[in-house]
């Protein structure tokens, strides 16, 4: 049981795109936290979190996204979520977090949001 979450990182213009794949739960939220911290060190203009390969997220995952948002706001980095799948959407809705985030449909759209 050592399947850590894989988080792909890429750049598009002045944006860094993080694309985790797999379920994000208590055992793997720290991978997101690490990936965000590393991306922030590069001081991008925007940080795009592509969640299209995440079918499931629990409150540990939501917490890391709230942290990332707060970190990004302090650092004047735009933080944008992309590709939210249905179950992850439910998790945002039930915790009333949807309104807090800038959400785009595609990575393309997020680079302009």
């Amino acid at each position, binding site marked *: 049981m050592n399947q850590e979450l894989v988080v792909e990182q890429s750049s598009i213009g002045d944006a860094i795109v993080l694309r985790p794949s797999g379920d994000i739960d208590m055992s793997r939220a720290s991978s997101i936290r690490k990936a965000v911290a590393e991306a922030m060190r590069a001081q991008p203009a925007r940080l795009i979190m592509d969640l299209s390969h995440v079918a499931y997220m629990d409150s*540990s995952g939501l917490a890391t996204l709230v942290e990332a948002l707060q970190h990004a706001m302090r650092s004047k980095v735009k933080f944008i979520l992309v590709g939210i799948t249905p179950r992850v959407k439910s998790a945002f809705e039930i915790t009333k977090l949807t309104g807090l985030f800038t959400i785009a449909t595609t990575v393309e759209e997020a680079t302009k949001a």
Partner: protein
Amino acid sequence: MHRPFFRQRGRVRSGDFMEREPEISIRLFSDPQLLAPIRALMDAFAKGVGFSEKTRGLLTLALDEALANVIRHGYEERKEGLIWINFWRLREPGGIRVVLEDLGRSVDPALIQSRNLDDVRPGGLGVHIIKETMSESSWESRPGGGMRLTLVKWLSEEERQQSAQSQSENTRP
């Protein structure tokens, strides 16, 4: 250690299953790596009872949150704690009951509360998710130490009709 499976007898309350043994009983270690298999089982169990895809997502999430709380607060992230989960199907009008038991630190159930979501900060969402999702959720401290959490979820009217329909529809064009 194995007792919780059997102590249920004569203690269970909700619905029509007095004295009935759970359909599935699980004992696992308080290891976050085991959350994924339990979620998968929960999802399929709830599917068999007739819950919609949307409700199953929330039930899976609620059980995950309850287990994460036992691991985090009950066992303070130690991986060798024991957790028992019992699953029942409820008939008339249809639903499930899930009971979690642990031998971890036990707290006054009155202290297990959801926080005000308007105050945006990471954490503190699990109990809210559990209460919001389930038809019933109640924490007790167990006489022998640890906590017991009882979760009940009934099918919605729509899920009930869907589920009845999928039976009669069978092999029909």
